């Protein structure tokens, strides 16, 4: 069954770096797993704890935030704030009995197309090893589906 498991991974990508890097990866014709669903954000500082949790709640097997290199945030410190929130969500996942590694923070620049692909592969491999999110593993009762 795990062979057939194709994880769903949400990536919150900053438009100044990671999102541009994804574009670059595309134009360089670098392939990266289709499991990654990209959500563009104006700055990773915009990504809140609740966004990360919502993704998990809605069945994502993994979530990551990709922002600028430390010190290079377009809005000075948005990426540092994002890191703290990712850390906080890791703790929440641990409290929930889930693997904290399902959530991660990455830093890269707009010039790092290959690195973008690498991160996507790394994250997909990681989540594939962890298996489906326990949120999806259980047959969900009707009430919760409302």
């Amino acid at each position, binding site marked *: 069954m795990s062979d057939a498991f194709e994880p769903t991974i949400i990536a919150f990508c900053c438009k100044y770096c990671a999102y541009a890097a994804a574009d670059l990866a595309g134009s360089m014709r670098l392939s990266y797993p289709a499991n990654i669903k990209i959500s563009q954000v104006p700055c990773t500082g915009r990504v809140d*704890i*609740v966004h990360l*949790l919502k993704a998990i709640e809605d069945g994502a097997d993994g979530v990551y935030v990709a922002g600028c290199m430390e010190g290079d945030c377009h809005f000075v410190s948005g990426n540092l704030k994002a890191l703290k929130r990712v850390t906080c969500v890791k703790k929440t996942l641990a409290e*929930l*009995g889930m693997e904290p590694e399902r959530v991660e923070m990455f830093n890269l620049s707009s010039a790092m197309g290959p690195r973008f692909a690498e991160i996507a592969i790394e994250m997909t491999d990681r989540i594939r090893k962890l298996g489906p999110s*326990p949120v999806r593993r*259980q047959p969900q009762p*009707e009430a919760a589906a409302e």
Partner: protein
Amino acid sequence: MIVADRKSLSEIQDMVRDCRKILLVGCKGCVTVCNVGGLKEVQVLAATLRIAAKIEGRPLIVEETVLERQCDPEYVEMLKPVVDNFDAVVSMACGVGPQFLSEAYPQQRFFPAVNTTFFGGAVAHGIWEERCAGCGTCIIHYFDGMCPVARCSKSLMNGPCGGSDHGKCEISRNINCIWDMIVRKKTEQGRLNDLLDIVPAKNWQTARDGGPRQSRREELIQNG
């Protein structure tokens, strides 16, 4: 403001373990300012509880709302149309909130999602500190704006004790010795003489020690 810390997830889960449908109620007052019980925190807790229920394969509906204040009957009243639609209501306000809600809706069960800790303020982003003990008789003007009742671990009126250590309190290196600060400020301002008189024993009747307190403002009380 009143400062609070959120209870652990497991403690909240234990409170509502037998519920299938709960309402989380935040408050736009103090707990919003100290980032523990406002809209965002309500959303985070709700999502977390829903994830937990999904992991367990247990049906659970969590709805979210935020009141202007939970310490005012006129806002508490706004829950009236929905309050009975739930197995329980979890308040994210300070300790006043769940009590006002319980008084307004005696048929419903209310649980606190936070531990109310102290009266204080933010000394830095994400760090709050105690400043007031609510003793009912303010004396900070004798101590250049610093309160030994709230901020000395022993509430000494004639400190500092022998445990003052390089400006820190003997109980923790993270806590300033308020008496060290008082003495320094008085010295800098040439008012050390203020501290040479013995401060007599405090009358604690106005504090919680005198029993639960009530504040009455006759000009505001509406008859009938």
